[in-house]
């Protein structure tokens, strides 16, 4: 039997774990720096410039369905592309979450037809590359929609044509900023009231309907504000004038094709995540909830979904990131998102490597922002164990 070494003797340097750890990290860092500088030297030797001055030059091109004019700078053009990307990302993520959750729950429904239909939807869309879905949606739209001269108009609510679509939206009727401020104040007040009613409920045990009170207050503030400010927001109806849509929210067909394609594709993934997270809640929870007399809806609402939501949040945020990056597939349908604009900038003779670095930087900022929100949400929601 070996005797233990006396305390105070240390292993030799080449077996000392602490030394080895540091040495390994230094070695990896040196390898990374060496590789990066080798790449940089090669690029410089081939006259690849890292000059970012091209950003201040005139773009020379416009972008359809945006306000970009050829006299604006290259940086403006790239930011317009970024704005397009973000629009699809934000609207798409919201729609994906809603649609994906509904389909995920539908897949667990007791109704055979609903369950099967949701199953087919998920299995078909999950297994097709997103680019194909986008191109398919675009091709279908190109073949069934009429040219703008013969656009389909649906009573001022919707305009459909092969170049542009229009949807009724809200527009400034006079006092929109004041109304917005009022709504914001109302929202804060509603949240405060909800919190107060929740405290009351916790203290007395009697149901205090916190959301009814909060929601009611918000609606009351909105109605009073609307009347008092004499219609601060009005409905704006889209109409076809000449060759474009005037009024309402106008969207180019490429935008709609990318949005619909990505929402269909990503929601199939989100549906699976939601379904999996509901199934991951231990059966004991459902059974116990039943044992204490909760109805199925109450079970879902108070016991299963909160736990499922906690499990589902990180993968769903991951899907949001995927959707944001998949907007770059819009190049196939002439959607002027960031990657398309970058390619156009490079094609017009501006230096390629700096332009791509700018685009990568912008994508990175967007993705990191989404990741940050995700990490904060996850940190707040995780199960804190003893």
């Amino acid at each position, binding site marked *: 039997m070996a005797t233990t070494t006396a305390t105070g003797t240390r292993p030799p340097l080449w077996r000392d774990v602490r030394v080895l750890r540091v040495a*390994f990290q230094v070695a990896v860092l040196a390898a990374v720096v060496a590789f990066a500088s*080798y790449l940089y030297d090669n690029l410089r030797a081939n006259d690849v410039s890292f000059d970012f001055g091209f950003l201040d030059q005139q773009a020379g*091109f416009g972008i359809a369905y945006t306000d970009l004019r*050829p006299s604006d700078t290259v940086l403006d053009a790239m930011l317009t592309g970024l704005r397009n990307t973000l629009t699809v990302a934000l609207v798409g993520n919201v729609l994906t979450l809603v649609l994906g959750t509904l389909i995920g729950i539908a897949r667990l429904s007791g109704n055979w037809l609903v369950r099967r239909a949701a199953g087919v939807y998920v299995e078909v869309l999950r297994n097709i590359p997103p680019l194909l879905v986008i191109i398919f949606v675009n091709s279908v739209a*190109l073949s069934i929609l009429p*040219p703008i001269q013969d656009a389909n108009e649906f009573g001022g609510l919707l305009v459909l044509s092969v170049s542009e679509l229009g949807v009724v939206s809200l527009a400034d009727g006079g006092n929109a900023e004041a109304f917005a401020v009022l709504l914001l104040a109302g929202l804060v007040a509603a949240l405060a009231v909800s919190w107060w009613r929740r405290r009351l409920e916790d203290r007395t045990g009697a149901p205090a309907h916190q959301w009814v009170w909060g929601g009611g207050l918000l609606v009351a503030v909105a109605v009073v504000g609307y009347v008092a400010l004499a219609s601060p927001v009005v409905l704006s109806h889209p109409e076809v004038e000449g*060759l474009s849509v005037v009024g309402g929210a106008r969207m180019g067909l490429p935008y709609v094709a990318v949005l619909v394609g990505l929402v269909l594709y990503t929601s199939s993934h989100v549906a699976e995540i939601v379904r999996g997270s509901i199934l991951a809640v231990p059966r004991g929870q459902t059974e116990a909830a039943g044992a204490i007399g909760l109805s199925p809806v109450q079970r879902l609402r108070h016991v299963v979904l909160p736990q499922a939501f906690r499990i589902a949040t990180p993968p769903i945020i991951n899907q949001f990131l995927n959707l944001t990056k998949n907007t770059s597939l819009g*190049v196939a349908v002439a959607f002027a998102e960031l990657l398309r604009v970058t*390619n156009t900038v490079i*094609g017009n003779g501006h230096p390629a490597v700096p332009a791509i670095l700018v685009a990568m930087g912008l994508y990175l900022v967007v993705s990191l922002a989404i990741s940050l929100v995700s990490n904060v949400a996850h940190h707040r929601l995780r199960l804190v164990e003893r």
Partner: protein
Amino acid sequence: MPRRTRTRRVTIVLVALSLFAAACSDDDDSNGAAADGNGDEEAAGTGGEGGGGDGLLGEVQDRGTLQCGVNETVPGFGLVDEQGEFAGFDIEYCRAVAAAVLGDAEAVEFTALDAETRFTALQAGDIDVLIRNTTWTSSRDGTENSRFLTTTFYDGQGMMVSADSAFQSIADMDGTTICVLSGTTTELNLATAAAGAGIDIEPLTFPDNEQLQPAFEAGQCQGWTSDKSQLAGVRSAWPDDQGGPEALRVFDETYSKEPLGPVVLDGDDEWADAVNWAVIATIQAEEFAITSDNVEEMTTSDNLDILRFLGQPFPDPEDPEAEAPPLDAGLGLDADFAVNVISQVGNYGEIYDRNVGPDTPLGLERGVNALWTEGGLLYPPPYR
């Protein structure tokens, strides 16, 4: 052995291997060669020894094939036909360069490129020469590090609309959506032309014609702008179920100058000269009325200029008894490269008539693409 020790040893071995790989890949000279090539020729301008020197000319001759960057979607200029073969005006010029440099017009490898990647392919050395309906502009000469050679086709930008639309000129097209290819001078010229006409248009940019055409067919854009030669090519191939060529109209207006020609990389003058004179040879041949049919008998012509041009020995003007050797212009090409070019490909007129001439579906008249003796812009420098 215990798992931690084994993991540690594996990790150390992996790190050592990756450092080795980083060090060893310094010997990989694919980037180095291009850098050397560029660096050498600044001092050089060697040319002269028969057969190229250290530059791209020597490399192509050693390799035995020419890498040519071309288009594959424009009828008449660069198109892949049903048999999978490349055909077109630019394709034949690739073959002419191969005939001059290598003696064999078939020794060409074509690389189809789209508008955005054509210059990066040239800069990366993937292709030796770019003959892809590329317009010569100052910024391309400058920022794209490229050198434009003799213009083979003087073109201009035009606009194509549906024949039953009411538009007669760009000034009528306020508020319309116009399809255009990205990465082209067309895109920039469209903005200028629209501003000049005082109208506002929405440009819809596509990476290539395969995505643009369905959008135009579906009516997503009301106009399609491109070089007039491209528009003629597209119109000639317009499918019958869309109405055939009669369903389209190209405006008479021209919005810009578009001189199209071959492009090589900056810095290798020897290669540029070789390609340039291969192209000029076709134009000079038309001026001398040498065709692929009569080139053999022209080698025994009485005209001294023709003999010199065709690289044949010719009577010495100073000493009628002696014979001067064929002219070696110091281009690094065979003395009779012009014979190879003309017999294997043809002169400018033949190439034009075969691909884009009045008897082809494109039906383009010579216009400014005629010899200077016929009032056009083609003026080949003398071969002497």
